[in-house]
């Protein structure tokens, strides 16, 4: 089971790099949504001995939320805003990719040094989490458009979700579903604000959000 899980996490880490290298918004959103779906499948692989309906429900909700609903919202915002789809980076694509790749290698090395329980030591969960969190931060800092920053935020959340999978046997599902609900509502609200910013500023370029300063 660990092999399949590691394969999925490996794919998710590859999608991080794809997200960093994307020069167009639709491909960035696609990378994020596929990553969300992969993440949703992981609990099913980890819970092989007691696969009850609640795990199924959380998995289904994650796939639907992270893989379909949120990307759908972002695509809608993108179309409604009618912005040009080129991503304008503060940190160029090649430097972002190099940072991301370096970060991924560092994450794998760092995870070896982490005190992990034996059953987690041979999975890629911890390095995958660190790499995704790093990717999220690079996108948050390094992209100018509001929607690409939201994608960065979601990849950061995905990384935290990966880390949360380490605790899947011990956290009650109520907590997991509460977290998922909060994240979805959060992105929904971000979507509304993105829409309002587009109307107020006629642009989604966060560099124009510079009135408030000392």
């Amino acid at each position: 089971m660990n092999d399949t899980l590691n394969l999925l996490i490996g794919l998710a880490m590859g999608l991080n790099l794809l997200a960093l290298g994307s020069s167009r918004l639709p491909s960035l959103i696609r990378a994020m949504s596929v990553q969300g779906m992969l993440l949703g499948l992981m609990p099913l692989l980890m819970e092989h001995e007691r696969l009850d309906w609640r795990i199924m429900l959380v998995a289904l909700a994650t796939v639907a939320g992270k893989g379909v609903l949120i990307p759908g919202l972002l695509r809608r915002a993108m179309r409604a805003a009618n912005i040009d789809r080129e991503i304008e980076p503060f940190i160029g694509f090649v430097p972002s990719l190099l940072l991301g790749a370096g970060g991924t290698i560092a994450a794998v090395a760092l995870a070896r040094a982490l005190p992990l329980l034996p059953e987690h030591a041979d999975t890629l969960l911890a390095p995958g989490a660190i790499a995704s969190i790093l990717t999220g931060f690079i996108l948050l800092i390094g992209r100018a458009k509001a929607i690409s920053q939201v994608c960065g935020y979601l990849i950061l959340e995905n990384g935290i979700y990966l880390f949360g999978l380490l605790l899947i046997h011990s956290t009650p599902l109520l907590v997991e579903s509460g977290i998922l609900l909060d994240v979805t509502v959060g992105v929904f609200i971000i979507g509304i604000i993105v829409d309002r910013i587009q109307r107020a500023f006629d642009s989604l370029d966060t560099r124009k959000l510079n009135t408030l300063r000392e």
Partner: protein
Amino acid sequence: MNPLLLIIVPLAGAALAALWPGNRTRPWFLPVFGFVHAVMTLWLFVNPPVIAPNAWLGFDPLARAVLPAVSLLFLVCAVYGVAYLRIRSERPNRVFVSALLAILGLLSAGHQARHLGLLWITTEAVTLAAVPLLHFNGAPRAFEATWKYLLVGGTGIALSLLGSFCLGYASLYGGGQGDLTFTALTAQGAALSRPWVLTAWVLLLVGYGTKMGLAPMHTWKPDAYGEAPGIMGAILAGGITTVAFTAILRVRSVVAASGVGPIADRTLLVIGLFSMLIAALFLLGTRDYKRMLAYSSVEHMGILCIGAAFGAAGAAAALFHVWSNSLTKGSLFLSAGNIRRAAGSPLMDDVRGMAALTPRSAALFVTGMFAVTACPPFAPFFSELLVVRAGLAAHHRLAIAMFLGFLLLSFFGLTRVVFGIVDGRPRPATRKNAKLFVETAGVVVPPLLLLGFSLWLGLFTPAILRESWLAAVAQLYPTP
């Protein structure tokens, strides 16, 4: 009485307000539900319930020591809200009223959360519920502020989730059974895995510190406070930040139980002093009197952390300071909101002579400024004095010297701005704008009440309140 009612009643009020058809009558939901909440909180405060140790939610000593302050602040702000929304009757207030009531319910849940995951869920939900209130004014500047609030606040809250997972893993690694209530985590004590506890502490301090507005994670605060309506500033500074502070206190008690308490206290002290320094420097530079209040809030969040770093006596002083800061800062935000409405600009370059145009609000603003800069006999003076005494008793002389120095700098900064807008001859444009604003009892009495509470708390701190702070400290700082 079931403490869950404190959560359910305001949330039901929020749902009702969302369905209520009348835009003119809807604001009355705020004081009605605020009053019911305050009465219930008072009842629970006097008759604290017994809590099962493994309960996820409960009116425990910490909730008892802090939640009444939030409830009181909300009630007074709710009364102000009716008058405020009457002035702003041109804007639909459905979302405003519902979100404000939802915040009250979620704050009650956050203060009562005794489970690491539940605490995170409620604080995140409060963060989100505050969003529609920040851009109530609908100006582009307000959306810019909201965006920064969401992005900075969202990242902070994501880090606190990661921190919660790390603390959970510390328990799992130490042989825990996955019970993430604070009682269970504290009971596990030294068995918690130390590297994971330290990682969790850093992440949770950064995460909840972002929510509190500790420097250097405070950057959302001036923007949000500057653009949000005064009432929202009061709720943010007095209610939402305190839930983050109690979260930090709860986490600190777990960290201390695992044996790294001194490290946690040292980080709290450093981040508190740094917040005070940054706040003082920006207070000396800012020209916007609403942003000034945000920096003052950063300063007071720093004071709370410093108090918490000085052991049990300091923590009791910090809980006192939660009360004095919430009430005094609430009064300042409401009177500043009046002045902003009358003056038409938040900048001291445009606004002068408000003492002539809005004499009552200006008097409240000046008195509130003296109260918040710890002039006796208002409550902040006594709570800060207790922080100083706790610090000296713990032999932190250098820290106390810096603390007093930063307080003095902030005093200079605040008086500079406050007297700048209150004194002098009003400009013609301001004069014209101020004619549209009438200082009715509805907008003057609430800040006056809050200031009165601050004075009362300073002069005659009720024994039952002191007892509640000490009980909360006994819960968080067990004596070995």
